[in-house]
């Protein structure tokens, strides 16, 4: 059972980044990049306390729909994975599953200090301290919790990065897929 699933997952995502992809990345096209940055649909994985910060972001105070951002319910339709708060081993499996179901190009924004270094839960036996070891993160937002203003700033930065072609987390994930996988398997006793 385990072997079969690994095969499916690697068929899904685990292609090595070759030269052609790199060229495509550079020639992604200004218009396409512009469209991508102006229409970031996000699926938010509210694992911890961060979810509450999203409400003012979506409603009339900060209104992120101004930038074409919109919460989406399924990863198949989303471009942006928002991880708000601490990540424990159990939820990490779900996050990886969700991430791998998203279509390219996709971006990850890690939210708060917990995904950066574990935050207050740094010594817990069930949370992970560095999200970047398991998933490629494009932007971190520091703070516990970050204010909505800083989230808006982060999205703004992400948009600039997309326009410049610097937000290449999904390409990193493909390129170093075996290393990410090894890290993930190290903490999961059983993969699926």
């Amino acid at each position, binding site marked *: *059972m385990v072997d079969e*699933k690994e095969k*499916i997952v690697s*068929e*899904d995502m685990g292609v090595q980044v070759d030269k052609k992809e790199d060229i495509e990345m550079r020639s992604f096209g200004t218009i396409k990049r512009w469209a991508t940055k102006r229409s970031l649909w996000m699926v938010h*994985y509210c694992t911890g306390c961060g979810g509450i910060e999203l409400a003012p972001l979506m409603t009339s105070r900060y209104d992120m729909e101004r930038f074409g951002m919109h919460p989406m319910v*399924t*990863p*198949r339709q989303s471009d942006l994975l928002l991880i708000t708060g601490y990540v424990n081993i159990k939820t990490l*499996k*779900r*996050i990886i*599953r*969700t991430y791998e*179901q998203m279509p390219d190009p996709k971006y990850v924004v890690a939210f708060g200090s917990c995904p950066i270094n574990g935050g207050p839960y740094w010594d817990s036996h069930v949370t992970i301290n560095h999200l970047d070891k398991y998933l490629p993160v494009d932007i971190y937002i520091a703070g516990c919790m970050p204010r909505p203003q800083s989230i808006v700033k982060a999205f703004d930065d992400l948009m600039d990065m997309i326009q410049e072609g610097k937000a290449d987390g999904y390409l990193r994930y493909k390129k170093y897929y075996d290393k990410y996988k090894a890290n993930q398997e190290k903490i999961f006793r059983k993969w*699926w």
Partner: protein
Amino acid sequence: MDYTAFIRPEYVLMLLFAGALITYFAGKYSSMARYSLSLLFSGLALLMVALLYGKNTLSVWTPSITPNGISMYVGTNPLTWFFAIILASLSFLTIMYSIPIMKGKRMENWFYTLTLLLMGSMLGVVFSSDLLSFFIFWEMMTLSSYLLVTLAGKRSDKAALNYMILSTMGAYSMLTGITMLYVHFGTTEFSLLSAQIPGTPVNFLWLSLGLVAVGFLVKSAALPFYVWAAPAYSEAPDGFTPLFSGALSKLGAYGLFLFMYVIVGMSALIGMGSFRGVSSFGYAIALLGSITAFIATLYAIREDDIKRLLAYSSVSQVGYILMGLGIGTSLSVAGSLYHALNHALFKTVLFMGAGAIIQLTGTRKMSEMGGLATRMPITFLTMLISIFSLAAIPMTSGFGSKWLIYEAAINKGFVFIAPLAFVASVGSFLYSFRLLQAVFLGQLPDGLKDAKDPSLLVTIPMIALTSITVLFAIVPGVPLGAIASAESYMGIQPIQVDSLFYFRIGNSFGAYNALVVMTILLFAMLVAMIMFAFAGSKSKKVDQHDTYLSGEIYEHHSDLGLHYAANFYRPIERMFEPYLRLRLERTYDAFGRGYELLSEGIRRVYSGDVQTYVYYVIGFLGMLIILAGWWW
């Protein structure tokens, strides 16, 4: 040698009856002989029926069997031919399909014998040109189909008995009507009868036609009598159901056409009373048909059993045929005949596919199947197109007929029939999608991983019938040409079919141009395909379990299953349930129980004790004496 002398209806019937006998004895020794002989006889009969096209014959085929000169007549005419070709081709294809499906089943040899017998008697019903032979063939057909239902073994006994009891009831009613006609007119031959009809008392016509119609309504499973249909269709052997639903259910409609329009005739029918230019008798039939279509659709929506679902759907579609038949205008009769053809085409394919799937999965519960579309592409595509035809999607032939019936109903301003028919048609999307979703889409169970399309003998009939469905969608003029001549035979103004453009059907009220619709559909298909193929990047194929489950991992919940098929329409069922609980079956059951109680009471009178009988005699004598004393 001049073979055309043998192309006569009586030879078709003799060939089939002899064929049934030969197949039985040959089949006892070799299964190969059984298959090839039954295919040969039915194929030959089909060929002969096809060659009968355009002929008008009438002949006595038995010597006078009673002293006062009643003979049996057979003949062909456009109406007869239209039904005969449907019945014959379906029988041939069903026999072909049954070879792998019925292999090794219970009483296999009898199956082929009875199917040939049934084919012969069905053709006999349509070819017969007098009341006596009509009734004899009708009963032969009922009996052989009853025996075919019982072949499935013990579990089909009750269903077969239901079918038989209701059929017998209908047959007695029909016999009464036929006898009345014979006694009144002194002849059994149809054309002699119809010549004498004008000037007959209206009450007599209502009574005799009503009695005869009961028999036909039972066979076409219309409203008060539909209770036999679902169990009988679903419990019958898989090889027989396509024929049962596709061909046999049309004969009720044929009988009504025959008695209403050929024998009684349009003017006498109008003379019996009319409602907005439509005969009251016809209107009653149409009303029954529309209510049947609606109610059977509601029942079909609730079914999880694939054959029961299709059975209720069959009842509902025959309701449409009755609807068009009853309204009796040029458009509606054309629609009715066309729908009979379409229903024969698509329902046969659906039951064939269902039979193949049942054989593969070993269950009739749809919620236990799933995801078979990629494993059985031919079955899926043929059934999909048939379902489109059932749901009257304009890419298929099924649209033309329903459109004609709606146009006729709206044209006459029947505000009760038209909406019922339309809502029933929307309901048919619901149940046909349930079939698609539960059987072909969704998650493939582990047990069906290596499912494959059935053998060629099963797929060839399905492909043949489906391609006719698609072909007639583009050229509805071809079947409508045959229908127009049948209409003019029945004395109804034939539907306009342009000989140059076979594509446009319609009248001043509205029009439907099949060629334009198909062209635009193909054009749009081209646009969409180009858009799909060239826009964006190529898509990657993913596993069926790699699906969005809120990030949840399938293997943790694999025992729960992801296939959403059981209780599919629960919310809507909940709304209908209080009303559907008033099932007609209960009424029949209550009637049966009451009858049993009554019989039990009468039985108790005969106690078997001599003393009681003596008391009866004394009591009776005493009563006589009292009566005598009172008299004087």
